[in-house]
Protein backbone atom coordinates (compact mmCIF):
# COMPACT_ATOMS: atom_id res chain seq x y z
CA UNK A 1 0.00 0.00 0.00
CA UNK A 2 1.28 3.41 -0.99
CA UNK A 3 1.04 6.02 1.79
CA UNK A 4 1.96 9.60 1.02
CA UNK A 5 4.25 11.33 3.47
CA UNK A 6 2.09 14.49 3.84
CA UNK A 7 -0.84 12.26 4.77
CA UNK A 8 1.26 10.59 7.47
CA UNK A 9 2.44 13.96 8.77
CA UNK A 10 -1.17 15.12 8.92
CA UNK A 11 -2.11 11.92 10.75
CA UNK A 12 0.74 12.40 13.18
CA UNK A 13 -0.29 15.98 13.95
CA UNK A 14 -3.94 15.04 14.44
CA UNK A 15 -2.75 12.11 16.55
CA UNK A 16 -0.77 14.38 18.84
CA UNK A 17 -3.78 16.72 19.19
CA UNK A 18 -6.14 13.82 19.86
CA UNK A 19 -3.64 12.49 22.37
CA UNK A 20 -3.62 15.79 24.22
CA UNK A 21 -7.43 15.70 24.34
CA UNK A 22 -7.19 12.20 25.85
CA UNK A 23 -4.74 13.53 28.43
CA UNK A 24 -7.21 16.33 29.24
CA UNK A 25 -9.96 13.78 29.87
CA UNK A 26 -7.69 11.40 31.79
CA UNK A 27 -6.18 13.96 34.18
CA UNK A 28 -8.93 13.84 36.81
CA UNK A 29 -8.93 10.07 36.74
CA UNK A 30 -5.16 10.03 37.31
CA UNK A 31 -5.48 12.44 40.23
CA UNK A 32 -8.13 10.37 42.07
CA UNK A 33 -6.30 7.13 41.43
CA UNK A 34 -2.90 8.62 42.18
CA UNK A 35 -3.90 9.82 45.64
CA UNK A 36 -6.70 7.53 46.84
CA UNK A 37 -6.26 4.48 44.57
CA UNK A 38 -9.93 4.67 43.61
CA UNK A 39 -10.75 3.86 40.00
CA UNK A 40 -13.60 6.21 39.25
CA UNK A 41 -15.79 4.78 36.50
CA UNK A 42 -18.18 7.73 36.90
CA UNK A 43 -15.52 10.01 35.42
CA UNK A 44 -16.92 9.74 31.89
CA UNK A 45 -20.37 10.76 33.06
CA UNK A 46 -19.04 13.87 34.82
CA UNK A 47 -17.30 14.69 31.55
CA UNK A 48 -20.65 14.24 29.78
CA UNK A 49 -22.37 16.51 32.31
CA UNK A 50 -19.71 19.17 31.70
CA UNK A 51 -20.39 19.08 27.96
CA UNK A 52 -24.17 19.10 28.51
CA UNK A 53 -23.87 22.06 30.88
CA UNK A 54 -22.09 24.03 28.16
CA UNK A 55 -24.88 23.14 25.75
CA UNK A 56 -27.72 24.18 28.06
CA UNK A 57 -26.13 27.16 29.84
CA UNK A 58 -23.98 28.64 27.11
CA UNK A 59 -25.69 27.68 23.85
CA UNK A 60 -29.37 27.41 24.85
CA UNK A 61 -29.60 29.93 27.72
CA UNK A 62 -27.02 32.30 26.25
CA UNK A 63 -24.80 32.66 29.31
CA UNK A 64 -21.30 33.87 28.31
CA UNK A 65 -18.55 31.26 28.31
CA UNK A 66 -16.59 32.34 31.39
CA UNK A 67 -19.55 32.43 33.84
CA UNK A 68 -20.68 29.10 32.34
CA UNK A 69 -17.31 27.61 33.18
CA UNK A 70 -17.48 29.01 36.70
CA UNK A 71 -20.90 27.43 37.23
CA UNK A 72 -19.60 24.11 35.87
CA UNK A 73 -16.60 24.18 38.21
CA UNK A 74 -18.79 24.90 41.25
CA UNK A 75 -21.34 22.22 40.39
CA UNK A 76 -18.65 19.60 39.75
CA UNK A 77 -16.95 20.50 43.02
CA UNK A 78 -20.20 20.05 44.97
CA UNK A 79 -21.04 16.79 43.21
CA UNK A 80 -17.53 15.48 43.95
CA UNK A 81 -17.78 16.40 47.62
CA UNK A 82 -21.20 14.79 47.91
CA UNK A 83 -20.14 11.54 46.24
CA UNK A 84 -16.96 11.30 48.30
CA UNK A 85 -18.88 11.88 51.51
CA UNK A 86 -21.91 9.73 50.73
CA UNK A 87 -20.37 6.80 48.87
CA UNK A 88 -16.58 6.61 48.63
CA UNK A 89 -16.05 7.29 52.33
CA UNK A 90 -18.49 4.58 53.39
CA UNK A 91 -16.68 2.01 51.24
CA UNK A 92 -13.12 2.93 52.19
CA UNK A 93 -10.65 0.10 52.13
CA UNK A 94 -12.67 -2.17 49.85
CA UNK A 95 -11.32 -1.78 46.34
CA UNK A 96 -13.86 -4.11 44.71
CA UNK A 97 -16.89 -2.42 46.27
CA UNK A 98 -15.45 1.00 45.40
CA UNK A 99 -14.96 0.16 41.74
CA UNK A 100 -18.39 -1.42 41.43
CA UNK A 101 -20.03 1.51 43.25
CA UNK A 102 -18.39 3.95 40.84
CA UNK A 103 -19.80 1.88 37.96
CA UNK A 104 -23.19 2.17 39.68
CA UNK A 105 -22.87 5.96 39.94
CA UNK A 106 -21.91 6.09 36.28
CA UNK A 107 -24.97 4.02 35.28
CA UNK A 108 -27.29 6.18 37.42
CA UNK A 109 -26.03 9.44 35.89
CA UNK A 110 -26.06 8.02 32.38
CA UNK A 111 -29.56 6.59 32.51
CA UNK A 112 -30.94 9.77 34.08
CA UNK A 113 -29.12 11.58 31.26
CA UNK A 114 -30.87 9.49 28.60
CA UNK A 115 -34.22 10.17 30.26
CA UNK A 116 -33.60 13.90 30.76
CA UNK A 117 -31.65 14.87 27.62
CA UNK A 118 -33.21 12.42 25.15
CA UNK A 119 -31.48 10.17 22.64
CA UNK A 120 -30.97 12.80 19.96
CA UNK A 121 -27.37 13.71 19.13
CA UNK A 122 -26.63 17.33 19.99
CA UNK A 123 -23.78 19.61 19.09
CA UNK A 124 -22.11 22.71 20.48
CA UNK A 125 -20.90 25.29 17.94
CA UNK A 126 -17.17 25.84 17.89
CA UNK A 127 -15.70 28.40 20.29
CA UNK A 128 -12.96 29.15 17.75
CA UNK A 129 -14.02 28.26 14.21
CA UNK A 130 -11.50 27.90 11.43
CA UNK A 131 -8.41 25.96 10.53
CA UNK A 132 -4.73 26.73 10.94
CA UNK A 133 -2.54 25.77 8.00
CA UNK A 134 0.98 24.89 9.12
CA UNK A 135 3.33 23.83 6.28
CA UNK A 136 0.43 22.06 4.60
CA UNK A 137 -0.75 20.37 7.80
CA UNK A 138 -4.27 21.51 8.56
CA UNK A 139 -5.30 21.77 12.21
CA UNK A 140 -8.76 22.80 13.45
CA UNK A 141 -8.55 25.74 15.85
CA UNK A 142 -11.02 24.32 18.38
CA UNK A 143 -8.73 21.33 18.89
CA UNK A 144 -5.77 23.65 19.33
CA UNK A 145 -7.77 25.54 21.97
CA UNK A 146 -8.64 22.35 23.83
CA UNK A 147 -5.00 21.28 23.60
CA UNK A 148 -3.96 24.64 25.05
CA UNK A 149 -6.38 24.16 27.94
CA UNK A 150 -4.94 20.69 28.48
CA UNK A 151 -1.38 22.02 28.65
CA UNK A 152 -2.42 24.70 31.16
CA UNK A 153 -4.27 22.17 33.33
CA UNK A 154 -1.36 19.71 33.30
CA UNK A 155 0.94 22.52 34.41
CA UNK A 156 -1.54 23.57 37.12
CA UNK A 157 -1.86 20.03 38.38
CA UNK A 158 1.92 19.62 38.53
CA UNK A 159 2.14 22.85 40.47
CA UNK A 160 -0.60 21.80 42.87
CA UNK A 161 0.74 18.32 43.54
CA UNK A 162 4.47 19.06 43.66
CA UNK A 163 4.76 22.69 44.74
CA UNK A 164 2.03 23.39 47.31
CA UNK A 165 1.32 22.31 50.89
CA UNK A 166 -1.97 20.74 49.78
CA UNK A 167 -0.09 18.68 47.22
CA UNK A 168 2.45 17.71 49.84
CA UNK A 169 -0.38 16.51 52.09
CA UNK A 170 -1.83 14.51 49.18
CA UNK A 171 1.48 12.85 48.41
CA UNK A 172 2.13 12.20 52.07
CA UNK A 173 -1.23 10.47 52.51
CA UNK A 174 -0.56 8.34 49.47
CA UNK A 175 2.94 7.44 50.58
CA UNK A 176 2.35 6.61 54.24
CA UNK A 177 -1.07 7.42 55.58
CA UNK A 178 -0.47 6.58 59.22
CA UNK A 179 2.62 8.73 59.57
CA UNK A 180 1.02 11.59 57.66
CA UNK A 181 -1.97 11.51 59.98
CA UNK A 182 0.29 11.52 63.03
CA UNK A 183 2.02 14.59 61.65
CA UNK A 184 -1.33 16.33 61.51
CA UNK A 185 -2.47 15.86 57.92
CA UNK A 186 -6.26 15.78 57.74
CA UNK A 187 -6.81 12.65 55.70
CA UNK A 188 -10.55 13.17 55.26
CA UNK A 189 -9.96 16.62 53.84
CA UNK A 190 -7.34 15.28 51.41
CA UNK A 191 -9.79 12.61 50.26
CA UNK A 192 -12.62 15.13 49.73
CA UNK A 193 -10.36 17.54 47.91
CA UNK A 194 -8.86 14.91 45.60
CA UNK A 195 -12.25 13.57 44.53
CA UNK A 196 -13.70 17.07 44.09
CA UNK A 197 -10.71 18.21 42.01
CA UNK A 198 -10.91 15.07 39.91
CA UNK A 199 -14.57 15.80 39.20
CA UNK A 200 -13.79 19.42 38.30
CA UNK A 201 -11.09 18.29 35.88
CA UNK A 202 -13.56 15.88 34.26
CA UNK A 203 -16.27 18.51 33.87
CA UNK A 204 -13.87 21.13 32.50
CA UNK A 205 -12.53 18.57 30.01
CA UNK A 206 -16.11 17.93 28.90
CA UNK A 207 -16.76 21.64 28.51
CA UNK A 208 -13.77 22.17 26.21
CA UNK A 209 -14.12 18.98 24.22
CA UNK A 210 -17.87 19.59 23.66
CA UNK A 211 -17.45 21.35 20.26
CA UNK A 212 -15.14 18.61 18.96
CA UNK A 213 -17.50 15.64 19.32
CA UNK A 214 -21.27 15.26 19.15
CA UNK A 215 -23.13 15.13 22.44
CA UNK A 216 -25.31 12.38 23.89
CA UNK A 217 -25.64 10.91 27.38
CA UNK A 218 -23.50 7.91 26.38
CA UNK A 219 -20.63 10.07 25.11
CA UNK A 220 -18.61 9.42 28.29
CA UNK A 221 -17.96 5.77 27.55
CA UNK A 222 -15.39 5.99 24.78
CA UNK A 223 -13.24 8.71 26.38
CA UNK A 224 -13.26 6.83 29.64
CA UNK A 225 -12.14 3.63 27.92
CA UNK A 226 -9.33 5.62 26.35
CA UNK A 227 -8.52 7.28 29.67
CA UNK A 228 -8.23 3.95 31.46
CA UNK A 229 -6.01 2.71 28.75
CA UNK A 230 -3.84 5.77 28.96
CA UNK A 231 -3.46 5.79 32.71
CA UNK A 232 -2.69 2.07 32.67
CA UNK A 233 -0.14 2.34 29.89
CA UNK A 234 1.37 5.39 31.58
CA UNK A 235 1.37 3.87 35.05
CA UNK A 236 -1.66 4.36 37.26
CA UNK A 237 -1.36 7.61 39.15
CA UNK A 238 1.64 9.12 37.37
CA UNK A 239 0.92 12.50 35.76
CA UNK A 240 3.97 12.35 33.47
CA UNK A 241 3.07 8.80 32.48
CA UNK A 242 -0.46 9.90 31.65
CA UNK A 243 0.82 12.64 29.36
CA UNK A 244 3.26 10.34 27.56
CA UNK A 245 0.76 7.55 27.17
CA UNK A 246 -1.94 9.95 25.96
CA UNK A 247 0.29 11.19 23.16
CA UNK A 248 1.36 7.63 22.31
CA UNK A 249 -2.22 6.37 22.15
CA UNK A 250 -3.39 9.37 20.11
CA UNK A 251 -0.63 8.85 17.56
CA UNK A 252 -1.13 5.07 17.34
CA UNK A 253 -4.85 5.55 16.83
CA UNK A 254 -4.60 8.27 14.24
CA UNK A 255 -1.68 6.85 12.22
CA UNK A 256 -3.15 3.34 12.61
CA UNK A 257 -6.45 4.60 11.23
CA UNK A 258 -4.67 5.85 8.08
CA UNK A 259 -2.76 2.59 7.63
CA UNK A 260 -5.33 -0.05 8.68
CA UNK A 261 -8.72 1.66 9.13
CA UNK A 262 -10.26 3.12 12.27
CA UNK A 263 -11.83 -0.01 13.82
CA UNK A 264 -8.58 -1.94 13.50
CA UNK A 265 -6.66 0.99 14.98
CA UNK A 266 -9.06 1.03 17.93
CA UNK A 267 -8.38 -2.65 18.53
CA UNK A 268 -4.64 -2.12 18.05
CA UNK A 269 -4.60 0.41 20.89
CA UNK A 270 -6.03 -2.19 23.28
CA UNK A 271 -3.54 -4.80 22.09
CA UNK A 272 -0.78 -2.31 22.93
CA UNK A 273 -2.30 -1.88 26.37
CA UNK A 274 -2.35 -5.61 27.11
CA UNK A 275 1.22 -5.88 25.85
CA UNK A 276 2.38 -3.07 28.15
CA UNK A 277 0.56 -4.65 31.08
CA UNK A 278 2.27 -7.96 30.46
CA UNK A 279 5.73 -6.52 29.97
CA UNK A 280 5.56 -3.84 32.66
CA UNK A 281 2.56 -4.50 34.95
CA UNK A 282 2.96 -1.12 36.64
CA UNK A 283 2.81 0.77 33.33
CA UNK A 284 5.51 2.78 31.61
CA UNK A 285 6.24 5.10 34.54
CA UNK A 286 4.30 3.51 37.39
CA UNK A 287 5.73 2.48 40.71
CA UNK A 288 4.60 -0.61 42.59
Amino acid at each position, binding site marked *: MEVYLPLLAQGLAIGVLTGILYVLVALGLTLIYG*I*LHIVNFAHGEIYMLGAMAVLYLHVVAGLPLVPTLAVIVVLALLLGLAIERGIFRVLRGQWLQLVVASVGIS*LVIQSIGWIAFGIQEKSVPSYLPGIVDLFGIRLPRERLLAAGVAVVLVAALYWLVYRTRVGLAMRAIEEDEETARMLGVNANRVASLSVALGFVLAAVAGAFVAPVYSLNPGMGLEPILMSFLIIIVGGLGSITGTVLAGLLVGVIQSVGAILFGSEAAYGLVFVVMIAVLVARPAGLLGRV
Partner: protein
Amino acid sequence: MKTAALVLLLLALVALPPLAEPYMLHVAIVVLMNAVYAEALYVIMRMGYLSFGHAGYIAVGAYTSALLATKLGVSVWLGFLAGGTAAALLAWLLGMVTLKLRGIYFSLSVFAFAEVVNAVFRAFDFFGGPAGIAGVPRPMFFGARLNTHLGFYYVVLGAAVISLGFLYRLAATRFGFTLLALRTRDTEGLAESVGIDAARYKTLAFVVSCFFCGLMGAIHGHYLRFVSPFVFTFFFSTDLVIFNMVGGLGSFWGPLAGAVLLTALGEQLFAAGYYKSLVYAVVLLVVILALPGGLIQLPRLREAWAARRLRWAKQPVVTTER
Protein backbone atom coordinates in the same frame (compact mmCIF):
# COMPACT_ATOMS: atom_id res chain seq x y z
CA MET B 1 -35.09 -30.52 53.08
CA LYS B 2 -32.91 -28.48 50.73
CA THR B 3 -32.73 -31.37 48.26
CA ALA B 4 -36.49 -31.78 48.36
CA ALA B 5 -37.00 -28.09 47.62
CA LEU B 6 -34.55 -28.28 44.71
CA VAL B 7 -36.23 -31.37 43.23
CA LEU B 8 -39.61 -29.67 43.55
CA LEU B 9 -38.27 -26.53 41.84
CA LEU B 10 -36.77 -28.58 39.03
CA LEU B 11 -40.05 -30.48 38.54
CA ALA B 12 -41.91 -27.17 38.35
CA LEU B 13 -39.41 -25.81 35.82
CA VAL B 14 -39.92 -28.91 33.66
CA ALA B 15 -43.67 -29.36 34.05
CA LEU B 16 -45.12 -25.85 34.11
CA PRO B 17 -43.82 -24.20 30.90
CA PRO B 18 -46.31 -25.87 28.47
CA LEU B 19 -48.98 -23.93 30.37
CA ALA B 20 -47.11 -20.60 30.20
CA GLU B 21 -47.50 -17.82 27.67
CA PRO B 22 -44.63 -17.21 25.18
CA TYR B 23 -43.71 -13.98 26.96
CA MET B 24 -43.29 -15.80 30.27
CA LEU B 25 -41.13 -18.37 28.50
CA HIS B 26 -38.98 -15.61 27.08
CA VAL B 27 -38.48 -14.19 30.58
CA ALA B 28 -37.65 -17.65 31.90
CA ILE B 29 -35.07 -18.19 29.12
CA VAL B 30 -33.37 -14.85 29.80
CA VAL B 31 -33.38 -15.53 33.56
CA LEU B 32 -31.75 -18.94 33.08
CA MET B 33 -29.09 -17.56 30.74
CA ASN B 34 -28.24 -14.72 33.11
CA ALA B 35 -28.13 -17.11 36.05
CA VAL B 36 -25.46 -19.18 34.29
CA TYR B 37 -23.47 -16.08 33.27
CA ALA B 38 -23.59 -14.74 36.83
CA GLU B 39 -22.49 -18.05 38.37
CA ALA B 40 -19.73 -18.42 35.77
CA LEU B 41 -18.45 -14.98 36.73
CA TYR B 42 -18.77 -15.96 40.39
CA VAL B 43 -16.06 -18.60 39.93
CA ILE B 44 -13.46 -15.84 39.61
CA MET B 45 -15.21 -13.26 41.81
CA ARG B 46 -15.01 -15.84 44.57
CA MET B 47 -11.23 -15.73 44.32
CA GLY B 48 -11.24 -11.94 44.46
CA TYR B 49 -10.99 -11.20 40.74
CA LEU B 50 -13.35 -8.66 39.19
CA SER B 51 -14.00 -8.83 35.45
CA PHE B 52 -15.48 -6.05 33.36
CA GLY B 53 -15.07 -8.08 30.19
CA HIS B 54 -16.99 -11.32 30.45
CA ALA B 55 -19.31 -10.15 27.68
CA GLY B 56 -16.27 -10.52 25.42
CA TYR B 57 -16.13 -14.28 26.13
CA ILE B 58 -19.89 -14.58 25.73
CA ALA B 59 -19.50 -12.86 22.35
CA VAL B 60 -16.71 -15.26 21.35
CA GLY B 61 -18.98 -18.21 22.11
CA ALA B 62 -21.93 -16.69 20.26
CA TYR B 63 -19.90 -15.78 17.17
CA THR B 64 -18.09 -19.12 17.02
CA SER B 65 -21.30 -21.09 17.01
CA ALA B 66 -23.11 -18.66 14.70
CA LEU B 67 -20.26 -18.73 12.15
CA LEU B 68 -20.00 -22.54 12.24
CA ALA B 69 -23.75 -22.86 11.66
CA THR B 70 -24.17 -20.21 8.96
CA LYS B 71 -20.91 -20.65 7.00
CA LEU B 72 -20.17 -24.36 7.38
CA GLY B 73 -23.57 -25.75 8.29
CA VAL B 74 -22.18 -27.46 11.39
CA SER B 75 -24.78 -28.96 13.73
CA VAL B 76 -25.94 -26.38 16.24
CA TRP B 77 -25.42 -28.81 19.14
CA LEU B 78 -21.74 -29.13 18.23
CA GLY B 79 -21.65 -25.36 17.83
CA PHE B 80 -22.65 -24.92 21.48
CA LEU B 81 -19.64 -26.96 22.59
CA ALA B 82 -17.38 -25.22 20.07
CA GLY B 83 -18.51 -21.85 21.45
CA GLY B 84 -17.59 -22.85 24.99
CA THR B 85 -14.29 -24.32 23.86
CA ALA B 86 -13.30 -21.23 21.85
CA ALA B 87 -14.02 -18.97 24.82
CA ALA B 88 -12.10 -21.30 27.15
CA LEU B 89 -9.11 -21.35 24.79
CA LEU B 90 -8.96 -17.56 24.62
CA ALA B 91 -9.37 -17.37 28.40
CA TRP B 92 -6.43 -19.73 28.80
CA LEU B 93 -4.23 -17.59 26.52
CA LEU B 94 -5.20 -14.30 28.17
CA GLY B 95 -5.24 -15.79 31.65
CA MET B 96 -1.66 -17.03 31.36
CA VAL B 97 -0.44 -13.46 30.93
CA THR B 98 -2.94 -11.37 32.90
CA LEU B 99 -3.76 -13.45 35.97
CA LYS B 100 -0.40 -12.46 37.45
CA LEU B 101 -2.01 -9.05 37.82
CA ARG B 102 -4.26 -8.45 40.77
CA GLY B 103 -7.09 -6.10 41.56
CA ILE B 104 -8.00 -3.38 39.15
CA TYR B 105 -5.17 -4.19 36.72
CA PHE B 106 -6.74 -7.54 35.96
CA SER B 107 -10.24 -6.04 35.68
CA LEU B 108 -9.07 -3.45 33.20
CA SER B 109 -7.06 -5.93 31.12
CA VAL B 110 -10.09 -8.21 30.71
CA PHE B 111 -12.11 -5.13 29.91
CA ALA B 112 -9.55 -4.21 27.23
CA PHE B 113 -9.76 -7.75 25.87
CA ALA B 114 -13.54 -7.43 25.50
CA GLU B 115 -13.06 -4.16 23.64
CA VAL B 116 -10.56 -5.81 21.27
CA VAL B 117 -13.02 -8.65 20.62
CA ASN B 118 -15.78 -6.19 19.86
CA ALA B 119 -13.52 -4.08 17.64
CA VAL B 120 -12.46 -7.17 15.67
CA PHE B 121 -16.08 -8.27 15.16
CA ARG B 122 -17.00 -4.78 13.96
CA ALA B 123 -13.96 -4.34 11.73
CA PHE B 124 -13.99 -7.47 9.57
CA ASP B 125 -16.65 -8.41 7.04
CA PHE B 126 -15.97 -12.07 7.78
CA PHE B 127 -17.63 -11.50 11.17
CA GLY B 128 -20.49 -9.52 9.64
CA GLY B 129 -19.12 -6.08 10.56
CA PRO B 130 -21.26 -3.69 12.61
CA ALA B 131 -24.46 -5.39 11.38
CA GLY B 132 -23.47 -8.75 12.84
CA ILE B 133 -24.66 -12.11 11.52
CA ALA B 134 -28.33 -12.67 10.76
CA GLY B 135 -30.18 -15.93 10.14
CA VAL B 136 -28.49 -17.92 12.90
CA PRO B 137 -30.52 -21.17 12.93
CA ARG B 138 -32.21 -22.82 15.89
CA PRO B 139 -31.08 -26.40 16.67
CA MET B 140 -32.74 -29.51 15.16
CA PHE B 141 -34.26 -32.04 17.53
CA PHE B 142 -35.25 -35.42 15.99
CA GLY B 143 -35.82 -33.76 12.62
CA ALA B 144 -37.80 -30.82 13.96
CA ARG B 145 -36.34 -27.34 14.25
CA LEU B 146 -36.90 -25.83 17.71
CA ASN B 147 -38.47 -22.63 16.44
CA THR B 148 -40.93 -22.16 19.30
CA HIS B 149 -40.09 -20.61 22.62
CA LEU B 150 -41.20 -23.80 24.37
CA GLY B 151 -38.80 -26.08 22.51
CA PHE B 152 -35.88 -23.73 23.01
CA TYR B 153 -36.77 -23.25 26.67
CA TYR B 154 -35.95 -26.90 27.32
CA VAL B 155 -32.59 -26.54 25.58
CA VAL B 156 -31.71 -23.60 27.81
CA LEU B 157 -33.07 -25.34 30.90
CA GLY B 158 -30.98 -28.44 30.19
CA ALA B 159 -27.82 -26.41 29.64
CA ALA B 160 -28.47 -24.26 32.70
CA VAL B 161 -29.12 -27.24 35.01
CA ILE B 162 -25.95 -28.99 33.83
CA SER B 163 -23.83 -25.80 34.08
CA LEU B 164 -25.18 -24.69 37.45
CA GLY B 165 -24.94 -28.20 38.85
CA PHE B 166 -21.34 -28.47 37.74
CA LEU B 167 -20.42 -25.05 39.14
CA TYR B 168 -22.19 -25.83 42.43
CA ARG B 169 -20.31 -29.08 42.86
CA LEU B 170 -17.06 -27.41 41.83
CA ALA B 171 -17.31 -24.85 44.63
CA ALA B 172 -17.38 -27.66 47.19
CA THR B 173 -14.37 -29.53 45.86
CA ARG B 174 -10.78 -29.17 46.99
CA PHE B 175 -10.23 -27.06 43.88
CA GLY B 176 -13.13 -24.76 44.79
CA PHE B 177 -11.90 -24.24 48.34
CA THR B 178 -8.38 -23.54 47.12
CA LEU B 179 -9.75 -20.68 45.02
CA LEU B 180 -11.11 -19.11 48.20
CA ALA B 181 -7.60 -19.14 49.60
CA LEU B 182 -6.33 -17.04 46.69
CA ARG B 183 -8.57 -14.10 47.53
CA THR B 184 -5.88 -11.75 48.78
CA ARG B 185 -2.22 -11.29 47.96
CA ASP B 186 -1.27 -12.41 51.48
CA THR B 187 -3.30 -15.60 51.50
CA GLU B 188 -2.09 -16.37 47.99
CA GLY B 189 1.44 -16.21 49.32
CA LEU B 190 0.46 -18.55 52.16
CA ALA B 191 -1.15 -20.98 49.73
CA GLU B 192 1.98 -21.01 47.60
CA SER B 193 4.11 -21.64 50.67
CA VAL B 194 2.28 -24.92 51.25
CA GLY B 195 2.90 -25.98 47.68
CA ILE B 196 -0.20 -24.80 45.84
CA ASP B 197 0.53 -23.68 42.29
CA ALA B 198 -1.57 -20.50 42.49
CA ALA B 199 -1.04 -19.51 38.86
CA ARG B 200 -2.36 -22.85 37.63
CA TYR B 201 -5.41 -22.74 39.88
CA LYS B 202 -6.24 -19.21 38.82
CA THR B 203 -5.84 -19.96 35.13
CA LEU B 204 -8.01 -23.05 35.42
CA ALA B 205 -10.71 -21.12 37.30
CA PHE B 206 -10.71 -18.43 34.63
CA VAL B 207 -10.93 -21.06 31.89
CA VAL B 208 -13.89 -22.76 33.60
CA SER B 209 -15.61 -19.42 34.09
CA CYS B 210 -15.21 -18.46 30.45
CA PHE B 211 -16.13 -21.91 29.14
CA PHE B 212 -19.61 -21.65 30.64
CA CYS B 213 -19.94 -18.07 29.41
CA GLY B 214 -19.00 -19.16 25.91
CA LEU B 215 -21.35 -22.16 26.04
CA MET B 216 -24.31 -20.09 27.16
CA GLY B 217 -23.26 -17.32 24.76
CA ALA B 218 -23.50 -19.76 21.86
CA ILE B 219 -26.99 -20.77 23.00
CA HIS B 220 -27.84 -17.07 23.40
CA GLY B 221 -26.93 -16.35 19.78
CA HIS B 222 -29.10 -19.18 18.50
CA TYR B 223 -31.96 -17.98 20.69
CA LEU B 224 -31.82 -14.42 19.33
CA ARG B 225 -31.26 -15.83 15.79
CA PHE B 226 -28.62 -13.14 15.23
CA VAL B 227 -25.37 -12.01 16.78
CA SER B 228 -24.11 -8.46 16.74
CA PRO B 229 -21.29 -6.58 18.45
CA PHE B 230 -23.91 -4.31 20.01
CA VAL B 231 -25.43 -7.13 22.08
CA PHE B 232 -22.26 -7.99 24.00
CA THR B 233 -21.23 -4.57 25.26
CA PHE B 234 -19.55 -3.25 28.38
CA PHE B 235 -23.02 -2.90 29.92
CA PHE B 236 -23.58 -6.63 29.50
CA SER B 237 -20.42 -7.24 31.52
CA THR B 238 -21.42 -4.77 34.22
CA ASP B 239 -24.88 -6.39 34.53
CA LEU B 240 -23.17 -9.66 35.46
CA VAL B 241 -21.08 -7.90 38.10
CA ILE B 242 -24.24 -6.23 39.42
CA PHE B 243 -25.99 -9.62 39.74
CA ASN B 244 -23.06 -10.89 41.80
CA MET B 245 -22.79 -7.87 44.06
CA VAL B 246 -26.54 -7.50 44.65
CA GLY B 247 -27.02 -11.17 45.43
CA GLY B 248 -23.88 -11.33 47.54
CA LEU B 249 -20.50 -13.00 47.16
CA GLY B 250 -20.81 -15.02 50.34
CA SER B 251 -22.31 -18.17 48.87
CA PHE B 252 -23.26 -19.89 45.63
CA TRP B 253 -26.88 -18.79 46.07
CA GLY B 254 -26.02 -15.08 46.10
CA PRO B 255 -25.23 -14.49 42.42
CA LEU B 256 -28.08 -16.84 41.51
CA ALA B 257 -30.55 -14.82 43.58
CA GLY B 258 -29.20 -11.57 42.16
CA ALA B 259 -29.47 -12.78 38.57
CA VAL B 260 -32.97 -14.24 38.95
CA LEU B 261 -34.49 -11.31 40.85
CA LEU B 262 -32.90 -8.51 38.85
CA THR B 263 -33.48 -10.14 35.47
CA ALA B 264 -37.13 -10.83 36.23
CA LEU B 265 -37.49 -7.24 37.41
CA GLY B 266 -35.52 -5.87 34.47
CA GLU B 267 -37.66 -7.70 31.89
CA GLN B 268 -40.76 -6.00 33.35
CA LEU B 269 -39.04 -2.64 32.80
CA PHE B 270 -37.79 -3.52 29.34
CA ALA B 271 -40.29 -1.36 27.45
CA ALA B 272 -39.28 1.60 29.60
CA GLY B 273 -35.75 1.54 28.14
CA TYR B 274 -33.30 3.39 30.33
CA TYR B 275 -35.30 2.89 33.49
CA LYS B 276 -33.98 -0.67 33.57
CA SER B 277 -30.33 0.33 33.98
CA LEU B 278 -31.36 3.09 36.37
CA VAL B 279 -33.18 0.57 38.57
CA TYR B 280 -30.25 -1.90 38.39
CA ALA B 281 -27.77 0.80 39.35
CA VAL B 282 -29.86 2.20 42.20
CA VAL B 283 -30.44 -1.30 43.60
CA LEU B 284 -26.70 -1.92 43.29
CA LEU B 285 -25.75 1.23 45.18
CA VAL B 286 -28.33 0.67 47.90
CA VAL B 287 -27.15 -2.89 48.44
CA ILE B 288 -23.44 -2.03 48.42
CA LEU B 289 -23.92 0.84 50.87
CA ALA B 290 -26.58 -0.55 53.17
CA LEU B 291 -26.26 -4.32 52.91
CA PRO B 292 -22.65 -5.39 52.47
CA GLY B 293 -22.80 -9.09 51.73
CA GLY B 294 -25.80 -8.73 49.44
CA LEU B 295 -29.34 -10.01 49.53
CA ILE B 296 -28.34 -13.37 50.99
CA GLN B 297 -27.36 -11.44 54.13
CA LEU B 298 -30.98 -10.33 54.65
CA PRO B 299 -31.77 -13.07 57.19
CA ARG B 300 -28.80 -11.89 59.28
CA LEU B 301 -29.37 -8.19 58.81
CA ARG B 302 -28.51 -7.19 62.36
CA GLU B 303 -25.08 -8.84 62.33
CA ALA B 304 -24.28 -7.41 58.91
CA TRP B 305 -25.05 -3.91 60.15
CA ALA B 306 -22.96 -4.28 63.27
CA ALA B 307 -20.01 -5.48 61.21
CA ARG B 308 -20.52 -2.64 58.77
CA ARG B 309 -20.34 0.00 61.48
CA LEU B 310 -17.20 -1.51 63.02
CA ARG B 311 -15.42 -1.77 59.70
CA TRP B 312 -16.22 1.69 58.53
CA ALA B 313 -14.62 3.66 61.37
CA LYS B 314 -11.13 2.26 61.01
CA GLN B 315 -10.50 2.23 57.30
CA PRO B 316 -7.58 4.11 55.75
CA VAL B 317 -8.28 6.77 53.13
CA VAL B 318 -5.99 5.19 50.57
CA THR B 319 -7.46 1.92 49.36
CA THR B 320 -4.88 -0.78 48.90
CA GLU B 321 -5.67 -3.47 46.37
CA ARG B 322 -5.60 -6.95 47.68
